[in-house]
């Protein structure tokens, strides 16, 4: 049985890595099977997630990086269904958002950056145990940032000084996917699966500065390709705690870890 499980996992990983994608979705998906106790119940968690995306509008492409800390609470129904919510703080860096495109324009910094904005994530997952040691699950989750990210920079245009403020508003994302989970000895769960993903944010500049691409007017940044893959490990610690380590890969690699507790 384990050989068959491993074959499925290896095939899944190959499928995922061969699919072209440009972004990774926000936050971990967790193991397909809810981490609640067998009879069901509440679980909580605390985690860190490093997220890298590639966001683009019709003209330009930017790499974004988010560092998130979050608290999670979920309720599992007999380890087959799970509803969960996360609340956390996130920083956002958009590389080269202030980089001049002409030599006549200079700026004091190139990257957009702001920290500590609240976000929330809601999700649901279902799991079907094909075998005591193997199962398939599906999930959907979405995140929304309550606050806008803003940053400003100073510079010169043809020798004239300017100050420009950039706002990234209404950042949200939604993801859905399927996961394959195998349970190996010591109660360790390995999981892997593909997902689809969409995110967008509105860019709002305070002025139009020639030579700064993102200040040309209000625009929308979104991901281009929607496919990605994820894999992770969910291992029991002691006294009801579990450790989750997960990674995602699409165009860029993201990853994080969380410790959960099941009531």
């Amino acid at each position, binding site marked *: 049985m384990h050989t068959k499980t491993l074959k499925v996992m290896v095939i899944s990983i190959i499928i995922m890595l061969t699919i072209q994608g440009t972004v990774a979705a926000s936050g971990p998906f967790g193991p397909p099977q809810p981490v609640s106790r067998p009879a069901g119940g*509440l679980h*909580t*968690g*605390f985690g860190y997630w490093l997220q890298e995306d590639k966001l683009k509008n019709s003209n330009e492409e930017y790499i974004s990086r988010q560092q998130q800390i979050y*608290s999670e*609470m979920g309720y599992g129904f007999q380890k087959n269904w799970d509803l969960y919510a996360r609340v956390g703080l996130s920083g956002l860096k958009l590389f080269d958002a202030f980089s001049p495109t002409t030599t006549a324009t200079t700026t004091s910094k190139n990257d957009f950056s702001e920290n500590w904005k609240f976000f929330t994530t809601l999700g649901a997952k279902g799991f079907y145990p094909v075998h005591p040691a193997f199962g398939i699950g599906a999930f959907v989750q979405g995140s929304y940032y309550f606050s806008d990210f803003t940053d400003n920079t100073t510079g010169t245009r043809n020798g004239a000084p300017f100050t420009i403020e950039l706002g990234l508003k209404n950042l949200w994302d939604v993801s859905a996917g399927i996961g394959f989970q195998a349970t190996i000895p010591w109660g360790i769960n390995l999981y892997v699966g593909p997902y689809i993903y969409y995110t967008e944010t509105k860019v709002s500049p305070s002025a139009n500065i020639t030579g700064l691409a993102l200040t040309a007017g209000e625009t929308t940044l979104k991901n281009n390709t929607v496919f990605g893959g994820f894999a992770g490990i969910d291992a029991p610690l*002691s*006294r*009801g*705690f579990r450790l989750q380590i997960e990674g995602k890969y699409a165009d860029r690699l993201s990853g994080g870890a969380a*410790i*959960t*507790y099941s*009531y």
Partner: protein
Amino acid sequence: MPQKAVPSIKSYLFGVTLFCVVLAAGCAHKPSVVSDPASSAAAPPAQQVMAAPKAEPSPPPSPEVSVKAVSGNLDDYQDIEDPDKGKEVEKVTIADPLEPFNRAMFQFNDKLYFWFLKPVAQGYSKVVPEPARVGVSNFYTNLSFPIRFVNSLLQANFAGAASELGRFIINTVWGIGGLLDPAASKEIDLKKQPADFGQTLGIYGVGQGFYIHWPILGPSSPRDTVGIVGDIFLYPSIYLGPWEVWAGARVYERFNYTSLRIGDYESLKEAAIDPYVAVRDAYVQYRLNMIKHKGGPPPPGVKGLLENN
């Protein structure tokens, strides 16, 4: 001019005094960490604390009151062996020179409880389901972690301090900010340390002195009143900003606490020939037990009525 991060002592005392007078932050049967330092300072000096072995001469009948003097291997019917066979049972006494005042304050608190605190708590419990009220209670308990942690350290109860620290971290991180109490689960089993500054003073040999029943705050002693003042400065909510904020937080905490324990005081009162004496004796025993068994569980029965934190 930059705003002061921490209000002055004067503003604390003013806030505490006004808080005590205006609102029922306590109940007739439960002491609070909120106290009136001015009243405490005005109290007469402590006379004595008696925790004498049975063999010692009995104290004079008044104003000192004997709480319990039980010993022996058989029960009242002389037919069942006492499980505490061989253990030395101590006589617990406390002076009560202010008995007329204390009885008046007891009556005041009794009416305050039945006429105001209990009806409000009952109305609150009709609106807010019990799991939510338990969550609020857990949150406040988690918030008062510094009191238990610092006093455990002061008592050289390092295992207790570590347990408190573990409880705080686990309940804050995995208990949704303290609303849940996973640290008390069977698997983790980190017990709350009933430690406060009055207990710390007692462990260092400070006697509790005479019995005093404060209006609103309930049963206390000069030592425990001083301890309450010390605990105030370890309670995080007093640093929230204006005194109205933390006073409101304390009042809400007390209503929530009472809503979970409606009936406890009534049972004690119904079972007692003299409820005033019953409450006083329960309080004295409870405090003595806390000092004797630092870090241990408080005695059953009076825990819910008398515990501070």
